[in-house]
């Protein structure tokens, strides 16, 4: 086996490790469906009372439809951003030391964990699709679009899991990671086009939104789930891909700081 094959095989093994844990205890996955359900059922329903034109959402869509991609992105973000806590926990119980003492390249550990976040992201995707069907939110169920949605979800989960692991390598404790997780997720969410169009935002927030990866993700998801307007898709995916690669490299480089 050459080095690349080894890296890929190790990354898949680490992802497999996570998948097996989920199989033994999937309670967490089901709990994570609660929050998106609340957003769609309560927030979506209440805000649907406001005229669509006042909210400046694309004509022909209800507000609940409009926020469905945003809610999916947000729930994946929540899953991914707490991967840093997982890795700090694994450091505390000695598992990380053991993983790093295997011949697997460091990058495999990061990519493997990120892939595992992707697997959880896929479950979030399935939950949202199921919820949408149950409460009658009309989404595009074209097979290619659905596949595209899952691809973006996996990439997005990997991106923020890598960000979270990078932060964990620097911050090093679970308490700090809890803090930073809270401090990052809500601002990212509100400074994005997840639950309202960018055009409604004050100018400074529009500026921030342009640098917010979440906006690109929501844009891509919305194109595939709702509008079918793919014009922004290449840029969305490019931004996401580059951010993910950079963050994975950062995390791989910094990870060993956690055990020093």
């Amino acid at each position, binding site marked *: 086996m050459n080095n690349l094959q080894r890296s890929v*095989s190790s990354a898949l093994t680490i992802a497999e490790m996570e998948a097996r844990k989920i199989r033994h205890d999937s309670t967490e996955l089901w709990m994570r469906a609660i929050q998106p359900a609340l957003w769609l059922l309560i927030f979506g329903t209440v805000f649907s009372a406001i005229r669509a034109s006042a909210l400046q959402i694309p004509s022909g869509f209800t507000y609940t439809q409009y926020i469905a991609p945003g809610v999916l992105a947000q729930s994946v973000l929540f899953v991914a951003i707490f991967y840093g806590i997982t890795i700090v926990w694994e450091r505390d119980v*000695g598992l990380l030391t053991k993983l790093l003492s295997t011949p697997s390249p460091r990058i495999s550990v990061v990519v493997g964990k990120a892939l595992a976040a992707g697997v959880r992201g896929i479950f979030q995707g399935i939950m949202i699709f199921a919820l949408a069907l149950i409460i009658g939110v009309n989404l595009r169920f074209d097979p290619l679009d659905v596949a595209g949605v899952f691809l973006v979800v996996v990439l997005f989960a990997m991106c923020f899991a890598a960000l979270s692991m990078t932060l964990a390598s620097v911050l090093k404790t679970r308490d700090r990671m809890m803090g930073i997780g809270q401090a990052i997720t809500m601002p990212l969410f509100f400074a994005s086009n997840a639950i309202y169009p960018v055009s409604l935002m004050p100018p400074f927030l529009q500026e921030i939104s342009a640098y917010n990866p979440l906006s690109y993700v929501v844009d891509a998801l919305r194109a595939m789930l709702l509008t079918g307007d793919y014009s922004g898709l290449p840029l969305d995916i490019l931004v996401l891909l580059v951010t993910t690669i950079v963050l994975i490299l950062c995390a791989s480089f910094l990870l060993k700081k956690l055990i020093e």
Partner: protein
Amino acid sequence: MNVTTTEAIGTRSSENGMPLAVQVTGLTKSYSKGPKAVDSISFEVRAGEVFGLLGPNGAGKTTTIKMITTLTRPTAGSIQVFGVDALLLPQEVRQMLGFVPQAISVDGDLTGYENLLIFAKLFFVDPAERSKRIHEALELFGLADRADDLVKHYSGGMMRRLEIAQALVNRPKLLFLDEPSIGLDPHSRMQVIDHIRRLNRDFGTTILITTHDMAEADELCDRLAIMNLGKIAVIGAPRELKKSVGGDVITVAVRGPITDSIPPDLGTIAGRDQGTLKILTVDGERAIPRLTDYLEGEGAVVESVSLSRPTLDDVFMKFAKVSLQDEGSFREARSARRSIARHAR
């Protein structure tokens, strides 16, 4: 015997062509604050031996192991593992190693079988061999009937055994065990030691073990190094080290005439009292029968004989100038127990 320097005892290592498992030269690790954790140490571990690294808390044992396992980069010095430079080719070196860290490091959310499977994959164990080896290891370590239970329901001793069983699956050339028996009850501890010995004997695994349990080190190690304050105080075989602190003392209670001289090959008389004779000798067990024969030949009646031998503790006192019986071992045992509890949620 002169044992005042690090190199004194038993470094005839590669003279007879025996390959070296580990060769460490001038190894140093310093952190930004505080004194050097490891201060320019050099030692060798021969292939096939059980080598012990002894010392109190903060002696630098764990840091040394972390550097050899490529988890931490040394500040200075070189490390060769079976001739491979650990600083240049860390992945190649890790492929040859097994590592059982001080804190229990099994994954409580996976079954025993899965733990072994995942780490066999991460060590690129031949897939054709994998399943057979895992089942054999579980069998040998008495875990076969619990193989499909989540590890968080295991006892501390079982978790430790599972970690060591990994070595049987991966077959590393060199296995590192950092305080493997700490926090375990005496029965589990004995089982763990027994398994370590079997790995060494039956599979020829070279073993590097850190401990501050002197009795355990004495029982297990072919050679050992005593570390203190980041330096190696002395290296040698336990027997030689114990000899170096003064040898055995035989105390004989006799009736009748007491001689004032004995043949020099039996030892020397260290004290003569009313009816008792203290004799300083090199190998007490062998000297006793000849000594009683000699004394009785001289017309005395030997009533009782007792032998006291130096322990590794005495060696440690001599070379490290501190005793190991400090609160440190208690603190580490407590943290190890806590680590077991954390896994057994």
